[in-house]
């Protein structure tokens, strides 16, 4: 509710950044031209985790649900991450925990972008009543405590992969719609849209052929960062036992299991925590870098 006003204030003032040799503006301009190695490293990690998640049923790993050996072993050649308090192989459990996080993360944001993105695109292009309805409802939705709402939905429907995905997807619609709307509004006022309109191009064609290709890059970079948020949200629900339930390992429920024995076996919470941390960090990095690369206005999130 206050964010648009803030933009006006900032853009109304003389907040022009003049590039000087030693200021960070110059650095950003230089960095924009290439994605840089951090981006590729981050994408590589995300790709690796996706691959591990897809292949986890066929990889030659120990059974994640069956105790293999002595509980609480330190990392070794046979058990790379050690074993948990029941003697289960932690490396295998972390790999088998990846699918839930990734499925919920990508599917919910995919759904959210499909619905929220479409709404934002239409609202940003047609403006008027539709715009007021979409922005109004999004702003009100944002006032609700997001994760508490997700919790309510999941508790009343019952915890399952599908319900968690839908709950997070619903919560992601409003912020995604607002951001897509914002960049659509900017592009709608550009000359090429006015030209297309004057040539008698249909609205549908303008949206699909002129606006969509321009909005997609920023939506993708925002999407990556949102996937990170969704993975953390799933982890939180999982931590509370409101996502996929044990014995199926998820990073969230593994951290919850590790919390009980954090004094004796800190590794049980540490490994899934590290996996989630690095994945979220990589998604944030990749999304942030893409956003700079495509030169989207800062502060969109």
């Amino acid at each position: 509710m206050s964010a648009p006003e803030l933009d006006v204030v900032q853009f109304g003032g003389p907040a022009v950044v003049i590039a000087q040799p030693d200021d960070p503006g110059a650095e950003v301009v230089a960095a924009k031209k290439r994605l840089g190695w951090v981006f590729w490293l981050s994408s590589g990690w995300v790709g690796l985790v996706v691959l591990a998640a897809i292949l986890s049923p066929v990889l030659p790993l120990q059974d994640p649900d069956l105790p293999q050996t002595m509980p609480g072993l330190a990392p070794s050649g046979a058990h790379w991450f050690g074993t948990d308090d029941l003697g289960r192989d932690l490396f295998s459990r972390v790999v088998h925990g990846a699918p839930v996080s990734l499925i919920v993360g990508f599917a919910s944001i995919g759904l959210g972008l499909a619905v929220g993105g479409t709404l934002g695109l239409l609202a940003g292009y047609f403006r008027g009543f539709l715009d007021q309805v979409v922005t109004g409802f999004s702003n009100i939705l944002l006032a609700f405590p997001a994760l508490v709402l997700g919790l309510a939905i999941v508790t009343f429907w019952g915890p399952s992969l599908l319900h968690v995905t839908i709950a997070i997807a619903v919560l992601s619609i409003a912020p995604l719609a607002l951001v897509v709307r914002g960049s659509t509004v900017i592009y709608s006022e550009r000359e090429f849209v006015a030209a297309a309109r004057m040539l008698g191009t249909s609205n549908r064609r303008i949206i699909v052929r002129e606006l969509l290709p321009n909005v997609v890059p920023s939506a993708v970079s925002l999407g990556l960062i949102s996937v990170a948020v969704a993975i953390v949200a799933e982890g939180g629900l999982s931590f509370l036992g409101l996502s996929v339930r044990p014995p199926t390992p998820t990073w969230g429920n593994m951290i919850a299991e590790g919390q009980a024995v954090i004094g004796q076996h800190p590794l049980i919470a540490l490994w899934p925590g590290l996996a989630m941390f690095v994945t979220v960090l990589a998604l944030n990095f990749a999304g942030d870098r893409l956003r700079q690369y495509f030169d989207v206005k800062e502060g969109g999130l």
Partner: protein
Amino acid sequence: MAGLALRKFLLLIPVVFIVSVATFLLLNLLPGNPVYLILGPGATPKGVAQLTAQLHLNRPIYDRYADWLWAALHGNFGESYLNHVASSSLIKQALPVTLELLIYSQVIALAVSVPLGVYAARRPGGWVDQGSSSVAFGLLAAPAFLVGVLLVGLFAVHWHLFPATGYRHLSSDPGGNLRSLFLPSVTLAVGLLAVYLRLLRSDMIATLQQDYITVARAKGLRPRYILWRHAFRPSMFSLVTVIGLNVGALIGGAFLVEVIFGIPGIGSLTLHSIYQRDYLVVQACVLIIAVGYVLVNFTVDLIYPLLDPRVRRVRS
């Protein structure tokens, strides 16, 4: 100034109205009959009929909404079906605890991020700037429940410096109160300070490139004086907005931290009520949290003119 505040306040009324409708609909349109959810396996036809009448579920939904809203406006949010305590008194106990947690966490986050952000902006690209920016980016990726669990492991279980869970009242045990809220506040602050640092840094850099800063430098004012007296205040806009948004969002969003550390705040109350299907209490909590968020945003809007006289002119 007063007229502006009044106009903004009047705009709040439709927003709060829609929020209340949405809260009510959300929990009433969820699939499943709450009567069966509450009674569970022990449901008998008589019990079902009794509870249905007690919750007024046999009446049309708009009637129930009107009754609920009317009672809520009088501070009566219905009572918990579990122990028949009024929701309002449950909230009255829980809300101050959450607010205390929020204040501590904001103080910790600001105490770290403001000096670091200002110093980083003074020499962009220097080692303080690069170091703090990288650490901040890392902290952004650390989920609160993970940070909480690790802090408990280190500071409570391993070093016994702070209690792992539990809450002491400020009035009965001030020292214990601070100690019991320290780890949860730090957990919340970790996520916040990364955001604050990045915001303040970029706004400060923009401010420091304005003409009046050059004038101040040319006049020979001390760099530290320019930094804090001339540059800091106009660079606080985004920071104040985001602090407001965070305080609003964390009224309900701190529940994971409250659960990990066993803090009886409004987040824990909501969560336990959800588990128990105590849906009148859930409704009351969600309404309070959402209205709280709206009110905090309203207050933040009022703070702008105090920060920057230019806004005062533009708006009125």
